[in-house]
């Protein structure tokens, strides 16, 4: 489970659960849980209104595309991970 959860900040609102493209998150009352199908796409990180989710740097990239050999960085989270109000540098 690569996504880090700040359980103090979490509002248990389910925004991440319904936005997850791989349906990898479950919410029960005030507890969210990721399962192994998570692909670290970062959608939940961006969607979270509480800023309670983070992707560690190693999950963000840069990665090498196995087919083309091109380097890429995940689109959603900021590279430097700083909260700049939704707009990455």
């Amino acid at each position, binding site marked *: 489970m690569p996504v880090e959860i700040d359980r103090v900040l979490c509002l248990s609102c389910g925004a991440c659960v*319904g936005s997850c493209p791989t349906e990898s998150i479950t*919410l029960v009352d005030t507890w969210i849980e990721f399962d192994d199908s998570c692909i670290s796409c970062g959608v939940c990180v*961006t969607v979270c209104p509480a800023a309670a989710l983070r992707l560690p740097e190693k999950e963000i990239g840069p990665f090498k595309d196995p087919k083309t050999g091109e380097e890429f960085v995940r689109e959603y989270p900021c590279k430097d991970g700083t909260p700049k*109000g939704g707009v990455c540098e």
Partner: protein
Amino acid sequence: MKELTCDMLVIGAGPGGSTTARYAAERGVDVLMIEKRQEIGAPVRCGEGIARIWLNELGIEPDDAWISKEVDGARVISPSGHILEMNEKMAGNETGYVVERDLFDQYLARTAVKAGSELMVKTMATGLKQLDDGVEVKTTGIHGDMRIKAKVVVGADGFESRVAGWAGIDTRLPPEHVNTCLQYRMMNIGNAEEFNDFYAGECAPGGYVWVFSKGDGEANVGIGVQASLLNGYGGVKYYLDKFVKKHPFLSKGTIIEVVGGAVSVGPPPDETMKGNVLLVGDAARQIDALTGGGVVNACDAGKVAGNVIADAVESGKVNEEALKPYESGWRERMEKMLVRNYIAKEKILTMSDDFFDRIILALQEVEIERVTTLDILTAVQKKDPELVEELADLL
């Protein structure tokens, strides 16, 4: 493992689930409702504005137990501060009452139980299997692990629906079709209490800021932003904090509650049922993409679902064929509006702050009866024909 059987299992005791349960139970259907939370409706995830007209239609008596404020009108406020004021008749869905959503949800659940539904809280569905003659659902919770066999299952499990995926109904949303929301309930603020206010423009990319009055110097101050227009983390909070700081009537207030959530803002999905599983409410993406309002639609669809299921149970044949009228029934009632408001929302996304200002200015001086998309366009056409050229595809 405990084994249970029922005619209809409702997963999720929100407005959609409770309304479906109520209408089916009133006609003698054997209904079981399960709710994963320990307390129905809490924590709240909503702006809490509800239309008056709509309550009448569902035969719900307004009750002080869940109404915090009656609101006469709505105002749309442009980026430069131009105000478009609307009375209830014009604003339609978005005026009437500001409620306490947790108490409101509990009230609807009680109505369902009074009609004869069974209810189990702190009980969560963990899986679902379609059978030849119904649906089997596994659950866990305070009643222990259970296997429930139902003739029909209603997935009213909200924005984060699991039932949809289990039943093979694709309701997944790309970030373009998700608005993520944050709301502060604030006290000691100086808002205009007789209005629900909507702030449009770049203060909330792809969405809007709302200030819904709770009375007594309190209001829900919330924001919805389109997820695909955010990056990194903390984006929604950044925009809301910026808004609060910028407006003196808010910045001196105190936050007494924080509410999060998300709504779908895409077009309605292709299908909302499969086999003997029906989706209702947010799970079926029955949300107005322009306003983000969903309570009314969920209850409306729930009423359709409850009656269709009762018909099927009464006929003795509960299969996809017999349940199909649900799909056409709810679409007849709201699909046109959902599609139109989705298109309008997509158009609004492309508007600059300056464009918003011009529209509100144009509308201010025109008498309009009702604020539907068409009425707005017709009014704007009279005042500022140039504007309408840019909106031509909406007409």
